[in-house]
């Protein structure tokens, strides 16, 4: 019974595949893997916009949307209808083809990365040998789409927003990949399925997730911070920066194309959250042995929703960075910490099991953290403000 519920989607796919002639099997199999992804994640996007607005409202002691439907649950439908019926405006000076292509490329790229995310036991669209590499390689194309949007609009604000976005994404891609590399190094595989399998065991009630180890915890935090920056969310939402450059690279987009940008932004957020779950939070494994009756896909989505809630919480709390702070934080803090974390993970892998391994790994991370924190933040040199004209 429990297994049947766990494998319900896999079994359903097999049932649907049975009557198909063997010539068409690969095509139908691919379609049956892709179509649910195309339906589930936009649905999750709609749910997340609602949760985000409600949650932000409550964080700021407001009610949040509560008009459309009971408790406002139909708000995403209303938003969607409103966006779809808006006029599609293309500026006169724009390069029309690239202007059209940018959101399309962005959405396609955002969907492609889901191919390697294991959503449950036996539930991954393609188990690539180089899955993690695929994830990051395809993800980089998003930067180009952002540039296309910013440049094709012929608007100085969108160009500025695009430049900011690209600079930010490049700077934070390095700690993002470096913190993922620690996991790849310890498991010895780039395949997402193998990485999840490596976190299957339990000691007592405690799962062997990588986040439970010192280097894994540090890697997880670094990964989350970089992922926030990669998906341009607050406090790293400078590319959009409503108060300074209006809406960044998508000022000149309206109607359906704007909705595509919005969708792609959230899809990117879900994708990096899913990657964080796969790499550090044990993928679809239950958090304790006595919780293993929960279907694996339910575990994954609960973890995903928890991470999304964390992102919303962070957005409701933290103010936006300044551009120079953003860059310095990446190059002077995140990248050194990611490199140190890499060494720590390597030592963890080399040393035998025992308390000294924990001690070494912990000290190797904590010492640079405290030193960097003291030297960069405490003496106020890190965020020292320089004025060009005054003083």
């Amino acid at each position, binding site marked *: 019974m429990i297994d049947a519920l766990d494998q319900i989607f896999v079994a359903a796919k097999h049932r649907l595949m049975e009557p198909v002639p063997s010539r068409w099997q690969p095509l139908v199999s691919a379609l049956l893997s892709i179509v649910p992804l195309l339906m589930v994640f936009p649905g999750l996007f709609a749910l997340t916009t609602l949760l985000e607005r409600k949650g932000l409202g409550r964080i700021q002691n407001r009610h949040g949307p509560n008009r459309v439907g009971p408790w406002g649950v139909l708000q995403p439908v209303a938003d969607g209808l409103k966006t779809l019926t808006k006029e599609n405006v293309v500026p006169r000076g724009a390069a029309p083809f690239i202007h059209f292509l940018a959101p399309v490329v962005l959405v396609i790229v955002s969907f492609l990365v889901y191919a390697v995310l294991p959503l449950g036991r036996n539930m991954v669209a393609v188990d690539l040998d180089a899955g993690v590499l695929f994830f990051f390689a395809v993800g980089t194309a998003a930067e180009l789409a952002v540039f296309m949007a910013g440049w094709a609009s012929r608007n100085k604000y969108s160009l500025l927003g695009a*430049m900011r976005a690209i600079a930010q994404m490049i700077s934070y891609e390095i700690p993002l990949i470096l913190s993922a590399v620690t996991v790849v190094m310890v498991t010895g595989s780039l395949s997402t399925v193998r990485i999840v399998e490596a976190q299957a065991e339990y000691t007592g009630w405690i799962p062997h997730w990588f986040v439970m180890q010192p280097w894994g915890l540090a890697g997880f935090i670094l990964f989350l911070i970089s992922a926030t920056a990669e998906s341009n969310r607050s406090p790293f939402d400078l590319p959009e920066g409503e108060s300074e450059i209006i809406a960044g690279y998508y000022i000149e987009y309206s109607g359906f194309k704007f909705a595509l940008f919005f969708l792609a932004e959230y899809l990117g957020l879900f994708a990096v959250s899913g990657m964080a779950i796969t790499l550090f939070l044990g993928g679809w494994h239950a958090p304790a042995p006595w919780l293993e009756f929960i279907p694996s896909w339910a575990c994954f989505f609960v973890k995903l929703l928890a991470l999304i809630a964390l992102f919303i919480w962070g957005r409701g709390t933290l103010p936006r960075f300044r551009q120079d702070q953003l860059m310095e934080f990446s190059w002077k803090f995140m990248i050194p910490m990611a490199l140190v974390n890499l060494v720590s993970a390597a030592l963890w892998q080399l040393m035998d099991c025992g308390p000294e391994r924990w001690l070494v790994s912990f000290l190797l991370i904590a010492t640079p953290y405290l030193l960097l924190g003291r030297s960069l933040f405490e003496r106020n040199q890190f965020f020292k403000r320089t004025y060009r004209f005054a003083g």
Partner: protein
Amino acid sequence: MSLPFVILALLTAAAAMGAMSLRPLVHCVLALVVSLSGLACLYLQLGAQFAGFAQLLVYIGAVGILIVFAVLLTRGDAMPPRRSLVQGRVFGLGVAVSVLGVLVWAISRSCLMSPTLPPAPVATVEQIGDALMTRFVLPLELVGLLLTAALMGSVMIAMQEGEDK
């Protein structure tokens, strides 16, 4: 000659020509990116998964973005003036076409034209990693050194010389 190869080859070649012949510089860069992604797909089609993804990561994520930044920093996104067909252009095209002729002639004459398709070799990431760490460890270190030197060198070159003025 499979259909996917023909489609990818046409796309790649057309994008490469676009990259060299379009007038707005940004369009050239975008065409270059399309061409390089086509090459990455060709690598995947040839069974070199790691090479294909590495191509995407390096060329689209790094080199493409770098060129875009250079275009914007040198204000290259303005439309260049249209030029007439000058002598240098004819000379360059002539050289290129003759090089192409020689290459195609050499390929058609070569002894590598065995019509049988060898079985697809496997190149897992693990094998590549092993090879990089054992047989090719010296070149790997050298490339690392080269990249570090290039990083520092390009920062030094592109840095503003503010103190001198």
